[in-house]
């Protein structure tokens, strides 16, 4: 094992999560920074499809392509982070980290935060390293799949460390593996080696638990009467106190709503995990099956016991493709005989789309209130007195979507009695697939700006 340079520090690291997805709350992030003396605040805002959409934004305007909420989040958080000595790390750079850094510097200047250092991690975009014959994990090749919009490698701690060691108060990235956003500050603080698999696994568990924000502190959990969560409307973001050994105590903003207990942690530990003994990141292969979860106080849970194995040889790449259009249209029926009227509307719409217009692609028509989300799995009940017909299709061109909207709206006067509440929308889509690249082909670098 190679100890990295820089003195290991034995004190604990306080690291919090102030966003677990692009549309996460901002007021709760402000509360976390104000009420907890954090070393680091991490904002994880970049889903796979979010990044694919960001590539399209950048293509339309080279100054865009980073998180559209970056300005609002930075305005609220930068002054507070600076006042508290909390460093901010986020993947809001999305498809354009350089522009995100420039925007952040500009905001810092308008806020009077002279001298604020912003580091940006570059090199995750690998669109130019893919070839038409690059194989996809899902089968097929990049070239055969469709129109490429952009490709990004999941970077890990090794790439992030120079940004952290630059001392910058703000670090912006594009694609980095979500747990690595939390693990890298631990490595830097404690001087963990890049092949200290046990500690890297321990820190990865902490990152995995924090990366989805409130999903570990009461969000995505409440089930009234079964799993009650206090004051869910004021749910607090989570944070962890991490020791040099990689043990962590998970908690949330003091005085906030929400809940951190063994159940919220257990549910989140296996969220989007397949084989619990083999969770792959760019940094380590972590075994979650040995993790111990222990309640040690109110909203305080100790997490320890992960095991680690050497990191994968390759980096995972997410490849975004143009996905055509998703069209959705809805109309409602309520009161006596609502279900039969809604079923009649469904059969009319099917005949119009299939026979009159000859649409042969996938078309789904749900009757919300009878059965919708689980309609493929379960039979449709006979009765309900408030039913919403919801039709959806995907098509490469917008015109087919417009046809669906037209036909559903026409049900107002041409369909069953009492139909009301028509809505329709057409949204451009992206799709994603995965590929792999050898680590050495992905070259990263860090640039530092000053306000």
């Amino acid at each position, binding site marked *: 094992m190679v100890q990295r340079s820089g003195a290991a520090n034995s004190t604990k690291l306080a690291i919090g999560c102030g966003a677990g997805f692009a549309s996460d709350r901002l007021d709760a992030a402000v509360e976390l920074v104000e009420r907890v003396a954090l070393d680091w605040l991490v904002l994880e805002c970049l889903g796979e499809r979010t990044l694919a959409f960001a590539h399209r934004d950048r293509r339309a305007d080279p100054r865009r392509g980073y998180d559209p909420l970056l300005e609002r989040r930075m305005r609220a958080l930068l002054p507070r982070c600076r006042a508290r000595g909390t460093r901010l790390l986020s993947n809001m750079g999305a498809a354009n980290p350089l522009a995100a850094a420039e925007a952040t510097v500009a905001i810092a200047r308008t806020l009077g935060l002279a001298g604020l250092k912003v580091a940006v991690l570059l090199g995750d975009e690998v669109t130019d390293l893919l070839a038409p014959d690059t194989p996809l994990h899902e089968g097929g090749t990049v070239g055969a799949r469709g129109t490429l919009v952009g490709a990004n490698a999941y970077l890990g701690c090794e790439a992030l460390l120079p940004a952290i060691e630059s001392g910058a108060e703000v670090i912006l990235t594009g694609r980095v593996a979500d747990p690595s956003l939390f693990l890298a500050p631990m490595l830097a603080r404690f001087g963990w080696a890049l092949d200290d698999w046990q500690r890297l696994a321990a820190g990865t568990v902490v990152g995995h638990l924090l990366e989805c924000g409130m999903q570990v502190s009461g969000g995505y959990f409440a089930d009234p009467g079964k799993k009650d969560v206090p004051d869910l409307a004021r749910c607090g973001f989570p944070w962890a106190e991490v020791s040099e050994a990689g043990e962590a105590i998970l908690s949330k903003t003091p005085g906030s709503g929400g809940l951190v207990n063994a159940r919220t942690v*257990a549910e989140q530990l*296996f969220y989007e995990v397949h*084989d619990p003994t083999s969770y792959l990141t760019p940094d380590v292969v972590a075994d979650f099956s040995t993790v111990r979860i222990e309640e040690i106080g109110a909203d305080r849970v100790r997490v320890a016991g992960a095991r680690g194995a050497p990191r994968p040889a390759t980096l995972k790449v997410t490849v975004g493709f143009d996905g055509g259009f998703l069209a959705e249209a809805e109309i409602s029926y309520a009161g006596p005989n609502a279900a039969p009227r809604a079923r009649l509307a469904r059969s009319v719409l099917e005949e119009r789309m299939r026979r009159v217009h000859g649409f042969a692609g996938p078309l789904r028509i749900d009757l919300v209130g009878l059965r919708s989300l689980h309609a493929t799995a379960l039979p449709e009940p006979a009765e309900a007195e408030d039913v919403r017909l919801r039709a959806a299709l995907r098509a490469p061109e917008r015109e087919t979507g417009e046809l669906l909207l037209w036909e559903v709206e026409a049900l107002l006067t041409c369909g069953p009695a009492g139909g009301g509440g028509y809505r329709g929308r057409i949204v451009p889509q992206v799709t994603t697939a995965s590929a792999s690249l050898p680590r050495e082909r992905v070259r990263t670098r860090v640039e530092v700006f000053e306000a």
Partner: protein
Amino acid sequence: MSRRVRLHTIAHARAGDKGDTSNVCLFAYDPRHYPTLLRALEPARLAAAFPKLFRGPIRRYELPHLSGVNLVLENALEGGVNASLNLDGHGKSWSYLLLALEVELLPDEPDPGS
């Protein structure tokens, strides 16, 4: 007296997605109901219960120290967010689809909440 209950009575669950693969982790509230949870979540039984939805292999990982089970359901998201026409393209609600399954409590198991 029948002691047939929905899994929702004895367990809690969370669903996540990756591509067209869903994973649902479920945990018994009371470790004494863990054997029943395992019995209810036999992969073959799940495949037979929802053949049109769960169209691929089902892997089950047992987590006995947490009275838990992690189910990995391949080709179970109608194409996933890339392709699904389901309102819930992520299958966030698959947790509650499974919690609606009914199961008979064993004679030596306690009543729920006792």
